[in-house]
């Protein structure tokens, strides 16, 4: 009872300059936000005007996958890049303590939840065309399902096709690029698609993106690239950087 508060008090004492700085920053931001200045109406009216041409009836999906699809294309690459960077880090010599064997509760929970999560992800994907939802939400839920499987070191994981993971991760960004360039081959702009064929393009883009995002998130949870048996990495035990330049 005595230790906790006094510790926080001394921490506060040491960090008061930081706290002061943050308060000042917050005040400045609030002042700038509330102060008079040019105020625009935003783009909602323009979004509504072009909604019929976009192929979907949800404004958010229309913005993310049609009007500003280029941003979403690059965002897909950001997630892909995250996996790439994590895999490029060299495995450390420190090994994590072995996970205790997953209990019966976890495995039955997994059997119960994973099929449901896949179903919910599919629903969110479909719902995205006319209400809130879409690739990133569905991908997050798929990623969660992947984490459950990983926690239990489920035998399902061992049955995945070899090299399938790498292709699965690349599928979303790759399909996005294919759709973008295919539009150009038909004499249109990069990423240009309009109703009615836009609906198909958007649904397939979302599905592949969700799949890859889910895989990427689960892979990020796993931490490092699963090692194939043929490629022995000898670096795990020898700090080879000593000879590096």
């Amino acid at each position, binding site marked *: 009872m005595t230790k906790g508060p006094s510790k926080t008090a001394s921490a506060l004492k040491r960090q008061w300059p930081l706290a002061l700085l943050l308060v000042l920053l917050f005040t*400045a*931001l609030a*002042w*700038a*936000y509330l*102060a*008079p*200045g*040019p*105020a*625009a*109406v*935003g*783009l909602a009216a*323009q*979004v509504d005007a*072009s909604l019929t041409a976009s192929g979907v009836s949800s404004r958010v999906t229309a913005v993310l996958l*049609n*009007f*500003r*699809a280029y*941003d979403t294309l*690059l*965002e897909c*690459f*950001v997630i*892909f*890049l*995250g996996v*790439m*960077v994590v*895999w*490029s*880090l*060299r495995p450390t010599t420190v090994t994590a303590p072995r996970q205790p064997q997953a209990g019966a509760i976890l495995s039955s929970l997994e059997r119960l939840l994973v099929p449901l999560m896949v179903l919910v992800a599919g629903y969110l994907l479909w719902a995205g065309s006319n209400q809130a939802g879409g690739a990133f939400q569905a991908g997050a839920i798929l990623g969660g399902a992947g984490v459950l499987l990983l926690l239990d070191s489920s035998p399902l994981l061992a049955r995945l096709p070899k090299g399938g993971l*790498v*292709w699965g991760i*690349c599928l979303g*960004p*790759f399909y996005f*690029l294919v759709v973008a360039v295919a539009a*150009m081959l038909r004499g*249109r*702009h*990069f*990423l*240009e*698609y*309009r109703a009615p064929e836009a609906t198909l393009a958007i649904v397939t883009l979302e599905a592949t993106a969700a799949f890859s995002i889910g895989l990427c998130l689960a892979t990020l949870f796993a931490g490092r690239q699963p090692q194939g048996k043929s*490629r*022995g*990495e*000898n*670096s795990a035990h*020898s700090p*080879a*950087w000593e*000879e*590096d*330049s």
Partner: protein
Amino acid sequence: MTNPALHSSAWLIWPVAAPLTGALLTFLFKDHSRRLGLFFAALSSGLGTALAWQILGHGPAHYALGGWQPPLGIALRADGPAALMVMMTAITGLAVSIYSGGYFQSRRRNSKHHALHSAQEHAFWSLWLLLWAALNGLFLSNDIFNIYVSLELVTLSSVGLTALSGKPPSLVAAMRYLLVSLLGSLSFLLGVGFFYKAYGTLALTAIINSLSLSPPTSMALALISIGLLLKSALFPFHFWLPPAHANALTPVSAILSGLVIKGSWYLFYRFWHVELIFTAVGLVPAILGGAAIIWGAWQAFAQQRLKMLVAYSTVAQIGYLFVAFPLLAETSGQGHGALFYFAISHSCAKGAMFLAAGTFFLQMGHDRIRDLAGVRQLLPVSSFAFGLAALTIMGLPPSGGFIAKYLYINTAINQGLWWLALLILLGSGLSAAYIFRAVSAILSPQLLRIRPALVVSASMQWSALTLALISLLLGIIAPLPLALLEVS
């Protein structure tokens, strides 16, 4: 909204789309990553050059992605400065890529850890091609939220590349770089929010053209500027740069110093080249730049390791990129010429310098300056490249660096900014001092007692020399890049 002088051109998307495809393919086909990487590097370089050529011939261009015009959609825009930056990335990027081919091969050949070096090379090619795409996207984008996304791609791939060597100091540096850069990104994003609230559009040119200073817009500019200064490592935000640049793998050092810092600097220029702002706070970046020139040169002079010296030299040279902002107020456009000429010469020369320094490191097993004597005997081409690049960094004729500094001083005197002219002269003197320390060791007449076998490949030596020659050539063909810059 759209300027009638702009023509629509699909060429704008290819310098982004080609390296993006390359990043995916090199990631997928692990066993062919070098061949694929070199192929896509050549392709991206060719497409970047083609774009610059087109802009020079046909004037500025724009491209509405998805066929949606801004403010609803995102547009790319290529004018003179953007095309020049894409061109710079094409040249330095290609030279670094050719160097990397030889670099990873040599390291693999001379090491027991084959699997390790293969894994490093595989990761390098995909990260580097993604970084290339993101840089081109940054230079060409005309949408501030899209610029934020491109900045994120640039940051994350640079951090990954920095950490690639796996040495503890480079991991620490990469972590620091990540934290500083994320802070910069958040600051930038907050500024984007303020701008959108004020103007209802994300199109950069539309915002800049209707800019008027009020509390929200000043806050937006301040947040964006601070974010970009953090990412550009301008003094006093430079602390993360030297360890990150000096401890990375050599091609990565050249990429970080030659190209990545130019990305955030270029954006800073985009936001700041409005006369309105010069009159308000134009001196702030200039003063910080002046401090960077002196502090960076001083630190470079004190370094014992060659790569650290070159990295601190970058800190000083970033100062030159910002010190010229008061000069942009002049209408003749000479200030812009000086600024961009400095950027492109520095990119080539610093790239060449890092590549040569890394070649010495790989050959000798260290880069202690005082023990480098005799290296010219083993690596005459690399030593020559280092010496030529040094000409540009010091600003001696006939190099590109000389043209840049001549334009700087000329413009400063025309505007009566004597202190600026003196500062630039002082900076040149200081850079001569630290460069001379390195060059005198490398070119010393002392001979090696034992002549070890050559472990570096010819492509590593010659790519550095080509880049150094280009930095020299920029002093002779000055009218061509300046003509490209004028396109607007």
